[in-house]
C-alpha cells in the first residue's frame, strides 16, 4: 500500500516548482526551503541570513510541535505563522522539506473593526 499521503516524493523538481509558484505570489519577500534536517537548500536570501532564519525558525517550530503534541489529542503542526509589525513569516512543514516564506501581509481586518466601531483590538 502506498503511504502517499504521509511521505510523498520531494524531489528537486518539486522544490523548484514550489519555489517558482511562491515567487509569483504577490507580497512575498523571501523564500527559504529547508530539507528534513533544517539545512536550507533553496533560498532567495543571502547565505548568512538564510542560515540564521533557518536555525531560529526551526527551533521555534520544534517548540510549537512539542506544545501541540502535549495537547489532547496530540496533533501535528501544519503551519506556523508569526506576524510581526513589519512582515509575516509562514513556516510550513511538508513531508521531507520545510518551507519558510517571509511576506508582506495586508491587514484588512483592522479596517473592518474601525467601521464596526468595536473596540476589540488586534
Amino acid at each position, binding site marked *: 500500500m502506498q503511504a502517499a499521503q504521509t511521505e510523498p516524493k520531494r524531489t528537486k523538481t518539486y522544490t523548484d516548482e514550489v519555489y517558482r509558484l511562491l515567487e509569483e505570489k504577490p507580497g512575498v519577500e523571501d523564500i527559504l526551503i529547508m530539507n528534513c534536517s533544517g539545512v536550507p537548500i533553496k533560498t532567495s536570501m543571502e547565505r548568512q*541570513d538564510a542560515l*540564521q*532564519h533557518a536555525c*531560529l*525558525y526551526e*527551533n*521555534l517550530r520544534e*517548540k*510549537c510541535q*512539542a*506544545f*501541540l503534541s*502535549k495537547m489532547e*489529542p496530540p*496533533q*501535528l*503542526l*501544519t*503551519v*506556523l*505563522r*508569526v*506576524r*510581526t*509589525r*513589519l*512582515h509575516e513569516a509562514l513556516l510550513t512543514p511538508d513531508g521531507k522539506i520545510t518551507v519558510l516564506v517571509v511576506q508582506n501581509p495586508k491587514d484588512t481586518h483592522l479596517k473592518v473593526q474601525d467601521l464596526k466601531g468595536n*473596540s*476589540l*483590538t*488586534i
Partner: protein
Amino acid sequence: MSADKKGKPEKQHKDRSYDGDAFIAQFALRGAREIIILDADGNTLRSTVSPRRTFVYVSSLKPLVTMARNVVRDLNPSNDVTFMRLGSNGGEVHIALGTDFILIVIQRIKRKSTTQK
C-alpha cells in the same frame, strides 16, 4: 446582555461563567471555546477553561511566545511579534500579543464523528 465585554462582574467559578458573554459567543461560532487572557507578565486575567488547564496551557505557551519574540528580534531588532498562529489538523492556536496583554484562543475543528470541546 450587551454592555460589558467581559461578562459577569463577579467571578465565582472561572469555568463556564462566560456562557452568556456575547464576546465569547462570537468566538464560539468558529469553534473556539478556549480563550485565555493574560497580562504582559503572563498572569492570567480571564479564562474560559478550568484553572488547572489554564495553567498547563500558559506554562507551555508563555515560553513559546518569549521564544518567538527573541527570534524576531534577533533577525531585526526593530521588529516585534504581534500575532502567532499554530495550525494543525485538529485545530488552531492563535496568540495575539498586544502592548499590555496576551490573548490566547484555542480553536477546534469539529469533525462529524467526534465532538471535541
